[in-house]
């Protein structure tokens, strides 16, 4: 007797909808068991993790602020992954966007400027991220170099570049030699939406991006091309789609979105450049993209959910004294369960007797 995977003849909508719910339920269950084993009240712990972050207006704003960069980056990554372009360097593209947008803010610091500054910074950030993403794209199309590795290596390069800039040429002269730039002026800061929260313009931008991407993927020829190149590359070539041009395009778009997220974080939430402006958004966004099934609206939902787990983890540290590592374990489990359940949507597991094998 052995287990085999059998492709289901057609994908049932019911299973598609159930699968993430089952995954979340399994994660919650395992989490509860883990909390109980650590001597905590499972209900309370679950409440702190999943319910507290969204239980009031302030919490919801914080979830939105945390989810925005994740969603922006994940939407771009989803486009890449759907077309079999494995961009793992979003973290570096995020940092390059912060560097490019931050450069504009620093260069114009103290100089009179106008309402053109902020759009210029956003554009600069997008271009910075796109530029860094262009490198693995070109290396892949011209030389066949594995884009997972090249994009990953560039993450380290971008980190060191930011470190050098912030400690050297861009260091705030009035900052006691500490590794940070000047604080951005108000004109160079992403405006808040409401007075008493941290919700800023970044979130509506992210929502617009999601809508545009959703329309692009579902209804345009380009979207069809992206999906076809990923699922059936030979058919795509017969249909006349140029996969090299597509690679460059999706990498540019993905890099631009990651760079945009970078400048929004730097100019909105932190308002200066420092070495540690990203707690791994680029890598977390990869998970968001997969959790969202490589679908823009899915990325939105997954980004919100993952943001809730991050904030829940902070709350758990504050109110339950649960260490940060427990949050990571839960996030890892969530990803495992979602991936497993999604696989079971496409495949069925069957026990087969040996004689049945041809």
């Amino acid at each position, binding site marked *: 007797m052995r*287990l*085999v*995977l059998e*492709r289901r003849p057609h994908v049932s909508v019911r299973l598609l909808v159930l699968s993430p719910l089952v995954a979340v339920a399994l994660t919650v269950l395992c989490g509860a068991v883990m909390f109980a084993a650590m001597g905590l009240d499972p209900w309370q712990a679950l409440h702190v993790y999943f319910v507290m972050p969204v239980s009031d207006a302030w919490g919801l704003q914080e979830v939105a602020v945390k989810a925005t960069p994740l969603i922006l980056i994940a939407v771009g990554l989803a486009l890449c*992954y759907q077309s079999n372009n*494995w961009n*793992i360097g979003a973290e570096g593209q995020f940092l390059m966007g912060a560097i490019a947008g931050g450069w504009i803010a620093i260069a114009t610091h103290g100089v009179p400027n106008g309402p053109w500054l902020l759009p210029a910074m956003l554009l600069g950030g997008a271009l910075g991220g796109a530029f860094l993403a262009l490198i693995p794209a070109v*290396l892949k199309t011209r*030389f*066949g*170099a*594995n884009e*997972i*590795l*090249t994009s*990953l*290596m*560039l993450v*380290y*390069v971008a980190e*060191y*570049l930011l*470190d*050098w800039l912030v*400690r*050297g040429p861009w260091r705030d002269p009035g900052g006691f030699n500490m590794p940070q730039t000047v604080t951005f002026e108000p004109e160079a800061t992403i405006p808040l939406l409401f007075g008493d929260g941290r919700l800023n313009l970044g979130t509506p931008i992210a929502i617009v991006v999601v809508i545009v991407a959703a329309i692009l993927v579902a209804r345009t020829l380009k979207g069809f091309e992206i999906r076809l190149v990923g699922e059936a590359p030979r058919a795509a070539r017969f249909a006349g789609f140029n996969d090299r041009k597509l690679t460059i395009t999706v990498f540019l778009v993905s890099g631009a979105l990651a760079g945009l997220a970078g400048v929004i974080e730097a100019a909105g939430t932190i308002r200066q450049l420092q070495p540690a402006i990203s707690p791994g958004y680029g*890598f977390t966004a*990869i*998970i968001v993209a*997969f959790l969202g099934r490589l679908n823009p609206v899915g990325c939105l939902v997954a980004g919100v959910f993952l943001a809730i787990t991050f904030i829940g983890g902070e709350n758990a540290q504050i109110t339950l004294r649960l*260490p*940060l*590592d*427990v*949050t*990571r*374990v*839960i*996030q*890892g*489990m969530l*990803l*495992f369960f979602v*991936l*497993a359940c*999604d*696989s*079971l949507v*496409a*495949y069925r*597991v069957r026990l*087969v007797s040996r004689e*049945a*094998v*041809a």
Partner: protein
Amino acid sequence: MTIAEAILLTVITAATPLLLAAIGELVVERSGVLNLGVEGMMIMGAATGIAVAILTGSSALGVLGAIAAGMALAALFAVMTLGLAVNQVASGLALTIFGLGLSGVVGARFVGVQREGIGKIDIPVLSDIPFLGRVLFEQDPFVYLSVLLVGGVWWFLNRTKAGLVLRACGENHTSAHALGYPVLRIRLVAILFGGACAGLAGAYLSLVYTPFWTSGMTAGRGWIALAIVVFASWLPWRAALGAYLFGGLTILQLHAQGFGVPVPSQLLAALPYLLTIVVLVLIMRVRQGSTAGPASLGVPFVPDR
């Protein structure tokens, strides 16, 4: 001891964990599976290794514990990617996060606990040879093991039938399956081997290199190991070269500072990564049109009976 000898000694110790992890991942990737979870398996190895060593008082048991931990995580990865045909990139990343978190939980009790590191083995007579003697023949057991592993993996892949079959699974799993080879089982063994090596590399860090536990002590070495596998174009001896190059550049950068060489430290630190990209491109230019690495790398395989 001359300074050249001294530098060589430190380069070897810096490179060893990278080489151990890389050689394991190399086998995994040759069989057609991309496991990005090396960092997670390595740090679990480090945490488990020192936990077991402290609890039992035996370094050897610690090493075994580390290997077991690496293999356990690898088994989880195998269930996902082989059993459920889940995307390998996503599974690997999930493994990294999960492993990082779990290692913190396992190691929490042992932060700052001091332990004697595993000492060097001195091969008599040979180690008295001037210059190379100490470098080659007075090293800790992991260094010797890493060299043996590289040789063993080379021999296995190139001189045995089993190795040939494994490579076939990596190049074209459909044909291998058609020929009757159990592709999934072969990949499973490869994945477990990779996990054992990653766990071993982690044990090296927490039991020999800096014998204590702190959160995140692998500091990204798992990702460097992945780079080394590609840098080596999936060939074992080149992986050793890559590991020594990466280890060497880090050490040389530190020495350069000590001597007052006026290059920004960040540039020196970024050099290994830039170099990997350059080498990758150069390899592909030479190859002219063939793919880099096993053709079926990363593609999930679901045998249809």
